[in-house]
């Protein structure tokens, strides 16, 4: 009983003054969502914790010591990973960065253009076009990989960097998001005002609309970056030269080495751990753009 009292008293210290606390019942309701969220956090963070801890274990310790007991092999694992086939891992990391970085940038640009156009201009077939795009959102990219391969094979582009980049530039979801965001963030009045002042359409887009769309475009960029970074099937089908592989594919070849060679678990785990780091860094760096709502309040009604 006493522990319960302490637990209730502790968070009460930080509550906003002015709200009178009933003796308990409001608190107890908040317990349920808090627990649910905690549970969710544990559920999502546990595998990450596993990867972090497992990457510190040497091959010898990996399956023989307690799961959440850190091992002693992290530097050894890093050295092995670095030495594996003359550091091909770093080539894969570079490839992933290239595919995801350039792919996401181009995809964001295309999304911004088309989203803005769909939101601002009224033209014939606009809704049809948008509906087709919506259907594209529902279409899982997985089932498109093989047709895309056959198309690019016709063009003689398979097993090239372009073959992985090109199909990912047009993201229906990105266009959809950009349209929704542009419709909400760029008021027609502002565009109209720009036209009155004699600005060209290009200038209105780049100087007025685009800055207003930045938070939405950052979201599109991040979504697309993560999607490409994690993509497996498209590069798997397109690429055969393992010097062009992204991380996902490279690590897969370490796992599937045929029946007479054991999977290189420690290398894969360490490799997977390192592969998450750039994503975390990217999120931390780009996050601040989300709250940056440059021109919110440009129009007063």
């Amino acid at each position, binding site marked *: 009983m006493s522990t319960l009292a302490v637990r209730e008293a502790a968070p009460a210290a930080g509550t906003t003054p002015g709200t009178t606390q009933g003796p308990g019942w409001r608190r107890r309701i908040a317990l349920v969502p808090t627990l649910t969220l905690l549970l969710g956090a544990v559920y999502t963070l546990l595998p990450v914790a596993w990867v972090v801890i497992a990457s510190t274990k040497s091959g010898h310790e990996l*399956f023989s010591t307690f799961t959440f007991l850190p091992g002693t092999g992290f530097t050894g694992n890093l050295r092995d990973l670095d030495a594996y086939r003359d550091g091909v891992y770093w080539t894969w990391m570079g490839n992933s960065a290239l595919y995801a970085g350039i792919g996401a940038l181009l995809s964001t640009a295309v999304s911004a253009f088309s989203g803005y156009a769909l939101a601002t201009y009224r033209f014939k077939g606009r809704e049809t076009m948008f509906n087709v795009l919506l259907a594209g959102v529902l279409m899982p990219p997985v089932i498109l990989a093989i047709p895309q391969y056959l198309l690019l094979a016709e063009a003689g582009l398979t097993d090239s960097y372009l073959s992985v980049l090109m199909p990912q530039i047009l993201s229906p979801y990105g266009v959809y998001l950009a349209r929704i965001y542009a419709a909400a963030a760029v008021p027609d009045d502002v565009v109209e005002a720009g036209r009155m002042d004699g600005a060209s359409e290009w200038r209105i887009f780049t100087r007025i609309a685009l800055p207003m769309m930045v938070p939405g475009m950052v979201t599109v960029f991040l979504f697309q970056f993560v999607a490409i970074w994690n993509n497996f099937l498209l590069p798997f089908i397109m690429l055969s*030269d*393992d010097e062009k592989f992204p991380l996902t594919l490279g690590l897969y070849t370490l796992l*599937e080495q045929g*029946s*007479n060679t054991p999977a290189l678990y420690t290398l894969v785990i360490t490799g997977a751990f390192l592969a998450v780091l750039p994503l975390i860094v990217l999120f931390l760096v780009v996050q601040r753009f989300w709250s940056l709502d440059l021109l919110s309040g440009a129009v007063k009604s």
Partner: protein
Amino acid sequence: MPHTKRRRLVTTAVAVSLGATALTACGAGDDGKAESGPVSLTYWTWTPGMDKVVDLWNQGPGKKARITVTVKKQASGDTLITKILTAHKAKKAPDLVQAEYQALPTLVSNDALADISDQVGDVEGKFAEGVWQQTTLGTDAVYAVPQDIGPMMFYYREDLFRRYGLKVPTTWEQFAETARLLKKKAPDKDLTTFSANDSGLFAGLAQQAGAKWWATSGDRWKVGIDDDATRKVAAFWGGLVKEGVIDNQPMYTPSWNKALDTGRQIAWVSAVWAPGTLTTAAPDTKGKWAMAPLPQWSAEQDVTGSWGGSSTAVTTDSAHKEAAAEFAAWLNTDHEALNALAKEGGIYPASTSAQLSGAFSDPPAYFANQPDFYTKAADIAKTTAPSAWGPDVNVAYTSFKDAFGAAAKNKSDFAAALKKMQDDTVADMKKQGFGVAR
């Protein structure tokens, strides 16, 4: 020359549709006049260190013949077959591919593999009959050159067998007795486990018992997964699981590794490549294991199954089939190449003369306590039963994993699981348009 070309056309036409064959023949015609200029070939393989082996070719015989091979390392498994077939659909498959024996019929029935009997027919004598037969699919054609094999063996903890007074079983009946005896003496231990997560194991066991899962009669396939031999194997393992004298947990999991490493499981029915797996799975028990032939179904028999193994094949998309076949023959029969393959890729060669040479004079480090490991292995390899693969092994394998995985977990009827495996396989073949005889 035109004569041989026509003959090849006829032989391939047996297995493949006519339109595609005509295309193949045209392709072969383009480079008909042997190789004059330099040729460059691409090779999809998953064997680690293959690039180093191929370097030997590129700097040696390949340089002389002006044939350069480039390795493109791939991930092994069914996914690679899908990838090869997708590439083949676009006529962009590489010149050479590594393929497991059970995948060959799938690739051949999709017209992805070229008949290289004219180029590699003379190396047949270097391989055991049961191994070579897998690359011909029972026709006059040759679709691949055998690379490595996985003859099955029985691995056990020598020290623990001694401690519990167990004898190494030579028949499956003794194997069951050994399992029961161990359970009595040490209830917390298991002789081994029945695992349903690698279908190759069960296929190999059925092969040992004499099963022929696929056969052709006339122009129709006959599927014999639910035959007497396989039923016997399924009933045997199902009985042991139900009785509770062996474990029913899958292999290759962390807890399986732990069970091997701590001696909770003291034996493993596996293949010649087991030392590699044990090195990572059970590092603490190095030097405590020993290898023996697989238990037999009757005392007078001496036969084993195979689990794993692969071959080198030339694709129909290759513009330089003869050069590719020449390389495939060199890779899998040349002394130097096979030694390098064993050293770099850890493979156990299919070529019989290589099984006792160079790299195989010493036992694997994990089995330092058994100096005659590879001599024994070569003897066992000779007893490998012939195997018969069909065009949808992947479907049968998936069905096995699902049906037997559930049956092992629930300790339920293995016969029903086998029936389901047969039905799924037949249904898929019919769906794919193969004629299936009942």
